[in-house]
Every structure is written in structure tokens, then in C-alpha cells.
């Protein structure tokens, strides 16, 4: 029983939140890594692309709610995601046309593009705050929980409850579907293959008649879709605040680099590594250990390695370790 209780407590406070957060990070990191693979720069505006896409989704959700449309137990925001994707796609394509294309044609150094993306970040951030304001927005509706802690206790007779938020379940399911679609697209369609070819060797791809502008356009659309899905899921799971999305940039980049920049599989692995370490290191282990350890050894303190305010420090330390010992990341991404 004790072991079961420990397992349940562990899943409730560590595994489930980390899996949900990891899926969100993985989706974000996929966007960063795709941009890096195809356009060859680190896109600092990614966090704010997520924010702006989520904002469009929220506005559409409010519109749908006002019309009386709802998905029953599921959050209405799911219906609004296509609107968010469309909005974000139009925005990034416009940005690419007005801003990035000029530097691409000039073959500017990657670091110039990074600075340019910083300017874009400023603009996106300003637009988001201008339209929806800098405050928290809560747009989740429908059922809050798939299983509440109390129901679980009644069902199993255990002391520990296991609460499964519907947004957490939704996050994982959506992430799996999106990632499966992405990999199918990259591996089995003509456009996807041309994208991978372009990422591997630009010159060779151009020689074999791949249209670079088309590849870039498709990439931006996919990235916009990934960013909006990631942003909306994160917003549903926690809440939407523009500044939080800017701060997500660090764990997202850490995930992408840990996995290996340019490697989609690495981005997913990196997302989960970062999420599990973040949640694991900032969780107070007293409860779980209390069940597992004999009474005499029971810990007196909280057994929390770092306070939750230091979650960024966790992704940062992992990032530093990877940079020191394996700068190309776990999945051997690009290093130049």
C-alpha cells in the first residue's frame, strides 16, 4: 500500500505535470529547431510568436463563447486553434516577406538574423500587449478534471489522490497527434522530403531543383502551427500572460539545444528532459519519501532541492552541461 501511495503521489505531483509540460516544451522546441534547420538562425521571436498566436486563439474563443458555441466537456479553445494558426501563419509569412527575406537574399551572418529576430520579438510583444494587455487571461472552459483527487481516492481506497486535469490529458493527446502528423509530413510527403534535403545540404537541394522560397514558406506555416498549438495548450494548462511566454524562450531553447539544434527527434527528447528535471528538482519530495522510507528515516524537511522560483536555473544548468560536454546535443544536431 505504501509503495502504491508513493507511486500515486509521484504521478500526481511529478510525472503527470512533467509529461504535460514536456509536451508543451517539445512542441515549442520543434518550432525553434525547424527554423534553425531550414532558415539557420535561432529565432528569439518564437516565444512571442506563441503569445501572439495564442492571443488570436483566445480572441476567437471569446467570439465563439459569445455565439454560444461550445464543445461540451472540451475547452472551446480547441475549435479556435485553426483561427489562431491562420492568424499566426499570416503574421509570420508577412514578417518573413518584410523582414527576414532581405537578409536571406544578402546571405547575412546568422547572428545578424538573431538580432533581427530580437527586433521582431519587440514588435510582436508590443502588438500582443497592445491588443490584449499584459495581464493574465484565463480562457479554459469545459470540464476541469478527468479524475479528481477525491474520486480517485474513493475508487481505489488509497490515501493519496490522483488528479488528472483535462487540460493535461488534452495536451498529451494533442501533442502526440501533432508530432505524428509532423513526422509523417517530413518523411512521406514530397514537400517534407524537400525540406529535409534543404536542411541537410542547401546547395545540393538547390541544384536538384528545390524551390527555396517554397520550402521557407512551408516551414514558417508549420512553425506557426506548432507555436500556436504549444502556446494554446500551455495557456489552457496554466494561464495566458504575455511575459510568461517570453520567459518560456529559455526552457524552449534549452530543450532544442539539449536535443541537438536542427533535429526534430532531439527537440522532443530535450523537451521531456528539461520538463522532468525542472519539475523533479523543484518538487518537495517529503511526501513520496515518507511513504517509501521506513518511519525512522523519514525526512524532516521538505526535501526540495531548489525552490520553484529557480526553475529557470534548472534548464540553464542542463544547457551549460550539454554545452560543455556535448555542444552538438544528444542527437547530434548542427554545430555550425
Amino acid at each position, binding site marked *: 500500500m505504501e509503495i502504491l501511495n508513493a507511486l500515486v503521489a509521484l504521478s500526481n505531483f511529478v510525472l503527470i505535470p512533467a509529461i504535460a509540460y514536456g509536451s508543451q516544451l517539445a512542441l515549442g522546441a520543434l518550432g525553434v529547431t525547424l527554423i534553425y534547420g531550414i532558415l539557420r538562425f535561432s529565432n528569439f521571436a518564437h516565444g512571442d510568436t506563441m503569445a501572439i498566436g495564442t492571443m488570436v486563439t483566445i480572441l476567437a474563443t471569446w467570439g465563439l463563447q459569445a455565439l454560444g458555441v461550445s464543445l461540451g466537456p472540451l475547452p472551446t479553445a480547441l475549435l479556435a486553434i485553426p483561427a489562431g494558426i491562420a492568424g499566426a501563419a499570416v503574421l509570420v509569412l508577412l514578417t518573413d516577406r518584410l523582414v527576414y527575406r*532581405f537578409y536571406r537574399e544578402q546571405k547575412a551572418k546568422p*547572428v545578424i538574423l538573431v*538580432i*533581427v529576430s530580437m*527586433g521582431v520579438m519587440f514588435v510582436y510583444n*508590443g502588438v500582443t500587449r*497592445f491588443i490584449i494587455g499584459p495581464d493574465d487571461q484565463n480562457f479554459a472552459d469545459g470540464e476541469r478534471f478527468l479524475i479528481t483527487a477525491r474520486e480517485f481516492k474513493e475508487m481505489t481506497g488509497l490515501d493519496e489522490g490522483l488528479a488528472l486535469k483535462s487540460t493535461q490529458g488534452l495536451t498529451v493527446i494533442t501533442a502526440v497527434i501533432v508530432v505524428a502528423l509532423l513526422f509523417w509530413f517530413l518523411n512521406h510527403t514530397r514537400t517534407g522530403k524537400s525540406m529535409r534535403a534543404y536542411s541537410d545540404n542547401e546547395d545540393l537541394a538547390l541544384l536538384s531543383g528545390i524551390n527555396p522560397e517554397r520550402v521557407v514558406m512551408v516551414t514558417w506555416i508549420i512553425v506557426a502551427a506548432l507555436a500556436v498549438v504549444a502556446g494554446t495548450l500551455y495557456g489552457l494548462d496554466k494561464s495566458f500572460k504575455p511575459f510568461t511566454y517570453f520567459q518560456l524562450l*529559455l526552457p524552449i531553447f534549452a530543450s532544442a539545444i539539449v536535443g541537438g539544434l536542427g533535429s526534430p527527434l532531439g527537440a522532443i527528447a530535450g523537451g521531456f528532459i528539461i520538463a522532468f528535471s525542472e519539475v523533479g528538482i523543484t518538487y518537495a519530495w517529503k511526501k513520496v519519501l515518507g511513504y517509501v522510507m521506513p518511519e525512522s528515516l523519514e525526512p524532516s524537511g521538505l526535501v526540495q532541492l531548489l525552490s520553484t*522560483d529557480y526553475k529557470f536555473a534548472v534548464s540553464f544548468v542542463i544547457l*551549460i552541461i550539454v554545452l560543455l560536454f556535448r555542444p552538438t546535443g544528444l542527437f547530434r544536431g548542427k554545430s555550425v
Partner: protein
Amino acid sequence: MRTLGLFALVAVLILGTGFLQSWNSALIILNMGLVSAIMALGVNLQWGLAGLFNVGVMGFVALGGLAVVLTSVAPVPEAWAAGGTRILGALVLGFVSIAACVLAWKRLPRGRRGWAVAVLSIGGFFLYRAVLDPGVEAVEAVNPAATGFLGGLGLPVVLAWPVGGLLAAGVAWVIGKTALGLRSDYLAIATLGIAEIIIAVMKNEDWMARGVKNVIGLPRPLPYEIDLQNDPGFVDRAAGLGLDPTTASTLYVKLGYSLMFTAVLVLVLVLAQLALNSPWGRMMRAIRDNEEAAEAMGKDVTARHLQIFILGSVLCGMAGAMMTTLDGQLTPSSYQPLRYTFLIWVMVIVGGSGNNLGAVLGGFLIWFLWVQVEPIGQWLMNAVTSGMAEGSWLKAHLLDSVQHMRLLTMGVILLLVLRFAPRGLLPER
């Protein structure tokens, strides 16, 4: 010619603020402009001279602010008695275990070193926490409403400026050691991360600088306004100039800061100019323009990059200490990356990267715009919305959002300059 003209423009803008709004606000802009100019010089050293992309300016600036508290605030004897030595011991212990890890990694043979480092780092961390935590608890329990921290050394506040530079140098060394020599984006991401962490530490480690409870009433290098107003000699002199004592005292203090900051800026600028035109500066630019060639000529690119990265960060730390001295308080939650990192970048790029005078110009000009965009935006929005019906939803929303115009304007300025005048207002010669 162009340089003179543009600096004259900045002077006109600031003087114009003095005549049109008030001399107090003109001096406030001038003082922060001076501080911003020093930060911009630091970033310009890193970016303009060496092509290093530092996105952690905020962190170094905040370290400068921390230095002010650590140097100038009077120590809290009760807190030191309660747990000061214990905390110091824990810090030493943490440092020793990191050093042991590095040593083990370097000295031990390949097969075993991974395990040794893992054991040393995990054991060291738990030991460190075991020593630190009781000390922190004891210190933070000492009169938490007023102190609850160790206090500083009680030294003159001006000393905090070089100390801020030193703190920044230490952190820059650690970051540079890890991220330099890898691809350029990695330094950007590493600095972005360290800045967030420095702020997180300052917000949470209450024993150090009271965290989000802020440290207010920091010592000042200049007299207080209220003392000046009570000084008959000063009041007489103010009356001689036709000023009332209150305005005169505030102007006097602000002018004092302006003079001190100008002295620092001139010193830094002269040094930066000398460095730029020295053989060392030429080498730096050679490295920036073609790393492979410089490396082939026998230059140690990574070591030179580390050097200049530290120098630039020192300037940011110093400027941060000066800014906190000017504010008279340390509020960790006021450090926002958009304000302290990206705005400095806009200054450097708009001013002209690679040109020290350009960075200074950018510092003043962009700071002026940052301050004045809001009233201009307000006016613009009022003009735009004047045709709309009173009390309409859109009108209220637009008027509310004016404060976010700043970010948008700065982003657009940055993008326009990068596109159409990538060398900035004062291009590198």
C-alpha cells in the same frame, strides 16, 4: 561634422525638455542617458569590436545594483551573529566543491572521472544546502520587516561602482568560459539564461539583499535635498539665482549626479577610444572580420573573446551600480529584459555599432525617445480617437494601450535601422 551635428541635436532635445517641460525632467533624462551611454559602450565593446552577442545585459546591470547594497549598506550585526559566518562557510563550501569537480574532471583518467564528478557535485550540493539553510533561516528571522539580511560593508557608495564591475566580471568569466568558442547563438542563449537566474537569485535570496522586499534608502554620495533646504547658505545662494529652495535643492543634487556620471563616462570613453585605436583594438577587429585568418596568424581567438566579453560586462556592471545609486533603492522586480537588455541593444545598433561615439549617441537618443514616446503616443492616440464617440469601447482600449507603444516603437526603429542603415547613425570608420 556628422558626429557634432548629431550630438548637438541630442543637446537641443534635452535642453528643449528643460525649457518646455521642466529642468528637473531634463536632468533626469540626462542622468539616465549618461548611465545608458556607459551600458551601450559596454555592449559596443562586445558587439561592435568583437561581434559577441550578449543578451544578458540585464543580469550584469542587476549585479551592479547588488554591489551597491553589498558595499555601501551598513552591516546588520545581529544577522551576522545569527548566521553570517555559517552562510559564508556554505558559500566557501559550494565554491570548493565546484573547484573539486573541475579539478577531478581535469586530473582523473577518462573512465572514472564522470562518476567522480557526479559524486562530488551531488554530495557537494547536499552538504552546501545542509550548511546554508539553517544560516539563511536564522538571518532572515532577524527583524524581517526592517532588515532580515546581512547588510553590506558600510563603505562609501562610490566604491560600489568598481565593485559592481568586479561582480559582473566574475559572472562574465564563468559564462564566457562555457559558451565562447561555440557557435555565436549559444552565447546569446547562455547570457539570456544567466540574466534570468541572476534576477531569480536576487528576488529569492532574502539574506543577501532582502529579495522582493527591496532595499530602500541606500547611502548617497551627495547631500540630501532636505538638508540643503535647511542650510541657510544654500537657500541664500538659490535666492541669488532667483530659484526657490525646493527646486534649487533637487536641481543641485541631480546636477551633482550628472557631473559624477559625466566624469565616469568621459573616462570610459577615452579608454575605449584608446583601446579601439591601439594594436589590441586592430587585432580585435581583425578577429571579428575574419576569425579563421586571425587564428591562422596565431591569435588565440577564444581567449581574446573572453577578454573583451569580460571588459564589456564590467562596464554594464558599473553602469548598473551607478543607476542603483541614482535611484537610491534596489528593487529586483524592476529588472525587465526588454528594458535593460534589448533597449541597450537598440541604442548600440541605432548609434552605430563599432563606433564608441555612436554608442554614446545612441544611449542618449534612444533613452530620450524611450522617455518621450509615451507622451507623444498619448497625444497621438488622443488625436486618433478624438473622432470616436465618447465612452466607446475601442476608444478606452486604445487610450489604455498607449503605454505599450514603447515596445512597438523600439522594435520598429530597430528593424528599420537594421534594414536601411545597418551601420547606424555614426558608422564605424
